[in-house]
């Protein structure tokens, strides 16, 4: 004990490899609850249809927000009014209060989520229940959720960055786990474009190239771990697969009509994108540049490899997903259709081939987006690597 005590005084215990601070654990739990709730809620809408504010899926979402918000609020109060000088100087100021940056980000996210609730309620009464999923109140809710998850990531990052080299393994993993949640949020937000049926069209690759290089590169660049983007992608796939496998275990029936597809179990989310494949390449390039300052030529290199690998992976994987081979519990290729969807051969065909084909021009646009996205990811990652508080 005597040998441990001086180290604990010199450095907060939270920065050791063994443990995560309680508030980070709470934020990780809150973030997980939010993303599980979100996928559950989407499945709920696709299976049961009828919904109130008090569905368990909504409760999971809001509970996650409240857990993160309250934990961070408590942390802010403690740091401001009862924090040690070390804690207070490792925090940032916000309207006279002090707390780590990640806590403030998460608190903002919680308020955004809570604000979206009455706004959404009014929206339903004015324009009908979820006429379109993407609405201003839902965008605010989505922004709140993703902000909490970014706050969690920032909290883990700051703690990781303050830990001495060689330590902070758990913090590094916590950062990558929260990054995996952010990836799951991002893929969920673009679900309407990422059905396997759309993965031979141009729009899918344009959107993917805009979103994922930024996320994956900034994760790889900001983490201390060597295979950071790969690990975060693996967390993403694991979380998504868990929902793909667990949700359809539960029996459920539509409570709204018209019912065009008789559904008897919870509809599965989409099988995750194979982000882990381009993530390996991204980690590889970022590792090579670790000591040097990354430039735009790196962004181009990363973009080309992202597009090449992602295209190759999804092009063939989507064909498999539409085939009978994917119609099982593991891939859930045939368990993703909501009760309102009309069955037909289109479910096993590639769509948008005429309206949005994957032409050379579309590929060119996707590549430009990937370069921009990678470049911004490098910049953002470099910035995040410096976060201290």
């Amino acid at each position, binding site marked *: 004990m005597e040998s441990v005590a001086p180290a604990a005084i010199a450095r907060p215990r939270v920065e050791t490899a063994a443990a995560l601070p309680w508030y980070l654990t709470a934020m990780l739990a809150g973030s997980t609850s939010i993303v599980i709730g979100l996928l559950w809620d989407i499945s709920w809408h696709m299976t049961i249809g009828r919904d109130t504010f008090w569905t368990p899926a909504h409760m999971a979402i809001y509970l996650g927000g409240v857990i993160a918000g309250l934990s961070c609020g408590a942390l802010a109060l403690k740091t401001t009014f009862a924090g040690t000088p*070390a804690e207070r*100087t490792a925090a940032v100021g916000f309207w006279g209060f002090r707390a780590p940056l990640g806590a403030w980000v998460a608190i903002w996210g919680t308020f955004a989520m809570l604000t979206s609730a009455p706004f959404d309620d009014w929206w339903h009464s*004015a324009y*009908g229940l979820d006429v379109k999923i993407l609405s201003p109140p839902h965008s605010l809710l989505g922004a709140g959720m993703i902000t909490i998850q970014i706050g969690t990531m920032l909290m883990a990052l700051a703690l990781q960055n303050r830990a001495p080299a060689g330590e902070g393994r758990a913090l590094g993993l916590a950062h990558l786990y929260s990054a995996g949640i952010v990836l799951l949020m991002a893929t969920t937000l673009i679900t309407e474009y990422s059905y396997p049926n759309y993965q031979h069209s141009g729009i899918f690759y344009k959107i993917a190239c805009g979103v994922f290089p930024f996320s994956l590169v900034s994760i790889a660049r900001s983490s201390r771990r060597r295979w950071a983007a790969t690990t975060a992608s693996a967390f993403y796939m694991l979380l998504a697969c868990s929902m793909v496998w667990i949700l359809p275990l539960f029996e459920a029936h539509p409570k709204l*009509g018209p019912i065009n597809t008789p559904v008897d179990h919870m509809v599965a989310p989409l099988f995750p994108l194979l982000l882990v494949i381009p993530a390996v390449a991204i980690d590889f390039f970022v590792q090579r540049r670790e000591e040097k300052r990354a430039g735009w030529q790196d962004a181009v290199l990363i973009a080309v490899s992202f597009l090449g690998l992602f295209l190759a992976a999804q092009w063939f994987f989507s064909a498999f997903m539409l085939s009978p081979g994917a119609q099982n519990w593991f891939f859930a290729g045939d368990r993703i259709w909501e009760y309102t969807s009309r069955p037909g051969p289109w479910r096993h065909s590639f769509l948008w081939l005429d309206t949005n084909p994957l032409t050379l021009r579309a590929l060119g646009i996707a590549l430009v987006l990937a370069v921009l996205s990678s470049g911004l990811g490098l910049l953002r990652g470099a910035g995040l690597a410096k976060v201290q508080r």
Partner: protein
Amino acid sequence: MKGFFSRSLASLVLILLAAAPAGAHVGSPNVFYDGNAGPYPVRVIIRPPVVIPGLAEITVKLGETKASEVSVQPIQWKAGMKGAPPPDVAVPVPGAPGVWSAKLWFMRSSSYGVRVQVKGPAGPGQAVVPVTTVPMQVLGMEKGMGAILAALGLFLFAGAVTLVVSSVREGTLPPGEVPDEHRRRKARISGVLAAVLLAFLLWQGRIWWNNVNAEARQGLYTPFHIRTAVTMESQPVLTLAIADERTADWSPLMPDHGKLMHLFLIREPGLDAFAHLHPVRQTQDDFRAALPPLPAGRYRLYADVVYESGFPQTLVDTVTIPEGTGPQVATAIAPDPDDSWHVAEPLTAPAAAGPKIAKLEGGGTMLWNQEPLVANRETTLRFETRDAEGHPLPLEPYMGMLSHAVITRDDGKVFIHLHPMGTINMAAQESFEKKVGMEEMPAMDHASMPGMNRGPSVLSFPYEFPQPGRYRLWVQVKSEGQVRTGVFDAAVGKAGK
């Protein structure tokens, strides 16, 4: 979110109601049905949602029947029983014996049949009540709500800007270090940039919201456009053309009470002259009717039609009838034998509640014991017909019904054609009955159904006046082969007064 909310404060203070007619009525969307669910007499009231998808409120009144379960189920026209969700169980209303209540989601702009199932001492029974669900209004934001959201939006905006300022100022600073002036300035500049970026995003959000609002307004239901005219050929003829490109996507018309169209003419402003005609279709969308001898003037025209999808519409226009359309020798178009018309005194300030007597053509009277009428409060309009000697007037079915009534408000913003069985469209009901497998039932004689005829020569109509104001009612019955029209005026008060 500031932009959203400042917009809400600026422009959404008022409740913006579009006076959108929907279904076979104008401004009177609530559905009333008096009939039977198997062995049980029922009154079903459906208050459809004003936005789609939305929740309808359903009340089932069973009177003396002690039911063990009442359920309601929406049957959408296209999906039928196969695509219908499971029934929703209604709950008894505390303190109101025999009254059951349920809320039902309607997800589409469509015609639906609400299947009401009753389980009681005499076994199960069911009725189908047709209803059309269309977006009828875009609700504005109330002041209090707008203020709360605006405050929260402002809080979030300020919070987001502060987040950027704090993170740039101190986020990457090792613990213990104090930000220098350079960092502070950088943080302030970042804050300004963040505020500009957020303002831009909010501005985009505002455009988005405006577009949603405009789209919602555009999507509000309006009946098909029609063109009407009175032409003087060998006889005065009323022509009506459905001139709307939306007809291409609609199913064909189907007859209701044996007629493709029930057309009503009501003279402005006194509502004194009234006609109930049945134009005959000439081509797909063109109708003609021989015009009865009506006094000249400007008339409101309401044409009730129903489509095979079970969707009824009241097509609305105004038409001017010139002088000299008195009795003519009809040659080109024979008037429909069920056409009727009536000229009465103009609408004046209606007397308060109490007994009112209207004189009928061919002698006889119609008595209305008018109860005090209040807007948005369910009522039963009861009429008693007597012959010239004061004896009950024996009634015959008029187009299959014991009676047809028309109710309109003095400004024309409310119009409804109803029957003793309520406001529902019978043809729509029959087609939904087939959908739920009730076609095997013996053909119903609607003129002798309970709830329609509460005794010889007595009529009753379930209804709810949707708005306060001055109303005129025309109640039409047939006796000794002659259509007789009782005309009544009524004042409807505001709820809560």
